[in-house]
């Protein structure tokens, strides 16, 4: 982190982090009179793991929803790959290569793991309705190609044993992993993870952390994640944004953030005298 330049920096463990790929400039988001996000700016660099943390109601999920195009901020600009992003629908954002997972798992419960992950490939399939229906030519070819990508992800996340299991029958920790698989299937350039470890036990958290690191390492995917568990965040991320009551109160490496007085106050509370 010491030698940060416009072109990027090298982490302590020798990973090369690239230039800024996404930038939030003075974002303000209001719901009626409630200010969810107030004048927040930060950037995400290519190949890094960027965390957004903060106490309950700090506006973390709102921020993620702004990035994914679900909410449109009243003020401020989102810059993506060097250009200002116009107001977009979520699917258009997805088409730009931004995939996400959800805090409250949003999978198709009645479908198998394989089918759920295949839906992540929708963007890569273009065969028409007729071709899909008669299952010849392009549709068949596309299915085979995409299945191969999906199988590699299934292998990567070690969920082969539940490939044909309906998602509704899976325990929580596995569902989270399936959701990650589906997001990965889109081969995103930025992956947004909304509390990937919420409600998990220590072992599941360790597994998930390893998968997140491996995804970043293996595919070079840029990852922005929201997380409650400070320990996990500090171990995983390269840089951390800290939010409290809609405001940014800290930004920097885990060590810097940990020593930031405003952050300590927000998390531990401060005596009002």
């Amino acid at each position, binding site marked *: 982190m010491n030698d940060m330049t416009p072109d990027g920096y090298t982490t302590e*463990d*020798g*990973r090369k982090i690239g230039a800024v790929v996404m930038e939030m400039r003075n974002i303000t988001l209001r719901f009626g009179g409630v200010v969810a996000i107030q004048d927040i700016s930060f950037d995400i660099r290519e190949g890094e793991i960027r965390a957004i943390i903060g106490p309950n109601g700090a506006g973390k999920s709102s921020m993620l929803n702004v990035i994914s195009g679900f909410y449109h901020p009243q003020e401020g600009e989102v810059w993506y790959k060097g250009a200002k992003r116009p107001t977009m629908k979520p699917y258009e954002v997805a088409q730009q290569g931004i995939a996400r997972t959800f805090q409250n798992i949003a999978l198709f419960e009645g479908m198998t793991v*394989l089918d759920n992950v295949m839906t992540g490939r929708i963007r890569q399939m273009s065969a028409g309705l007729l071709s899909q229906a008669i299952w010849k030519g392009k549709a068949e070819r596309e299915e085979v190609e995409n*299945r*191969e990508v999906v*199988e*590699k992800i*299934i*292998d*990567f996340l*070690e969920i*082969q*044993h539940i*490939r044909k299991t309906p998602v509704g029958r899976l325990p929580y920790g596995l569902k989270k992993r399936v959701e990650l698989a589906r997001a990965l299937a889109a081969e995103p350039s930025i992956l947004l993870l909304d509390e990937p470890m919420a409600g998990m036990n220590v072992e599941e958290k360790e597994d998930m952390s*390893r998968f997140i*690191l*491996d995804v970043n*390492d*293996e595919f070079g995917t840029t990852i922005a994640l929201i997380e409650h568990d400070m320990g996990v965040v500090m171990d995983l991320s390269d840089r951390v944004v800290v939010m409290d009551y809609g405001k940014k109160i800290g930004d920097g490496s885990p060590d810097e953030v940990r020593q930031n007085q405003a952050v300590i106050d927000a998390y531990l509370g401060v005596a009002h005298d």
Partner: protein
Amino acid sequence: MAQPSQATDGMDSVPALLQRNATRFGDKPAYREKEYGIWQCWTWAEAEKEIESLALGLINLGVNEGDFIAIIGRNRPHFYWSMVAAQSVGAIPVPLYQDAAADEMAYVMDHCGARFAIVQDQEQVDKLIEVQEGLHQLEHMIYVDPRGLRKYDHHKLHRYIDIQEQGRAAYYEWIEDLKARREKLTYDSVCVMLYTSGTTGKPKGVVLSNRNIIEASKSSSEFDKLTRDEEVLAYLPMAWVGDFIFSIGQAYWCGFCVNCPESPETMQTDLREIGPTYYFAPPRVFETQLTNVMIRMEDSGKLKKWLFDRFMAHARRVGPAILDGKPVGGMDRLKYALGNLFIYGPLKDTLGLGRVRVGYTAGEAIGPEIFDFYRSLGINLKQLYGQTEASVFITLQPDGEVRSDTVGVPAPGVEIRISDTGEVFYRGPGTFEYYYKNEESTKKTKDSEGWVATGDAGFFEDGSGHLRIIDRAKDVGKMADGQMFAPKYVENKLKFYPNILEAVVFGHQREQCSAFINIDLTAVGNWAERNNIGYASYQELAGNPRVLDMIQSHVEEVNRSLADDPMLSHCQVHRFLVLHKELDADDGEMTRTRKVRRGVISEKFEDLLGALYDGSSEIFTTTEVTYEDGRKGAISATLQIRDAAVVPVETIKVAAE
């Protein structure tokens, strides 16, 4: 051996067999592995190429003849190729248990002085790096799965496919060397070194020659008429002699296909997809499968349950006889055929055993009820008796002479004698060469005439000529009144209950028998769910009074059945407790092949053992546990001790005359 048996057609090493298979039926499948959801296949010709390029790569890396190469991974074609490639370059493959903790691994790595290790993934690389300082001989590591290893220092760390690539690039430099090294291999050269887990003491390196492996594979294949069309599923630890014989010895001798599962968790699905014709599993696997079937039947509807119970009762009555080709009445046959159509067939298919022509179980005694369950379905499950030192086979059960209480007749070429103390001795072409760097143990186990002590007590049954194993010779004890105490026999009876995973019975030099019991978390957990019993951990469930009631009823049933056996009626379990933790290999309570280590257990739980005999009704205890990653912790609990009803037996005045 008295008469040195000669290799047939110059087939005197495993690499030679590979050459033969690649030439004679090169386009027949040799290996399959399920990956990315599809069964990937390698023919014998392709496998030969893979092995050749790896072997060339190994020479290129500096492997010398006589070097030891440690192989650590789950059943994958890559590791089988590694073994044969190692042999081809004149090195000795040493497969290790991949779930062994780092310090266990350090011991064997140091003992054999391996210069090279071929391992599966980051986990194994990390383990070896952790202990590397103490291993002065270890020079290079080769890994198969690159995940997470990109940032590691690659001076002495290589990727498997890169080594193969280097081998192909250096083809003309080394091919003549490779051929020369391969041709030097004889019947006497070392084929493999396997470490025995040992229920006591440090592991010993058993050195097996090509003669041992090929002779044992040849005669056993002939015994069961194995052909090159068999299908096997390789899922047992590669470090275990059985897997080496089945997946390399017999597979190369016969030329049949070895199928590797996608991951350990998918084994059951993969088993169904392959439908092996030749199947081997230790008793525990059969127990687990049976437990799963029983759980699912408990959960099924009334009609299905009724049908299942009714037809299974019929199968138990006539199934084994039909399988053995004995006369059975027409009505019974018809009913069995119906059962086969509606119950047994679908069940066998679900279990993945629908095509099994020859099935074996060994390693431990199997509960007769479990054994009969599979036999009654029409699965030709047989027992064999063997050990690493014998290249597996000591005795085998011939078709049609299968019983749950014997282990069969001597394997072809094997001689057996029973010593005065009742211990079983054998010698044969499969008898191991020596223990590596352990002359003392070699002398103790194998005498100058080649007879090997098994450490098991047994006798030949009058009439049938079958061998019966009573117990480990050192486990068989005497009770305080001088009667025979055979713990395993009682334990196996207890373990037949799906709810009981493990049992350890004590009684040597005691007035009465008592037992430690482990519940089966799957079976009891399922039962708890159905009965609305909440629990958060194994420990909590194990201490539940209703679980204890259930276990007590099982113990009492076992006591009733023991009472009918004049030899063992005094071995009834008077008191028992359910342990607060599962016995585990990581804690040293079991071997990696999951045999209980009585010595360790009775030392570790000395306080509990004391409580079983001092009449107390509960005891507080704290136990140290080791987690999978080697960290340690402690758990404590207050355990209930229950008295089980026993059937009074008249004291036998004099033992049988």
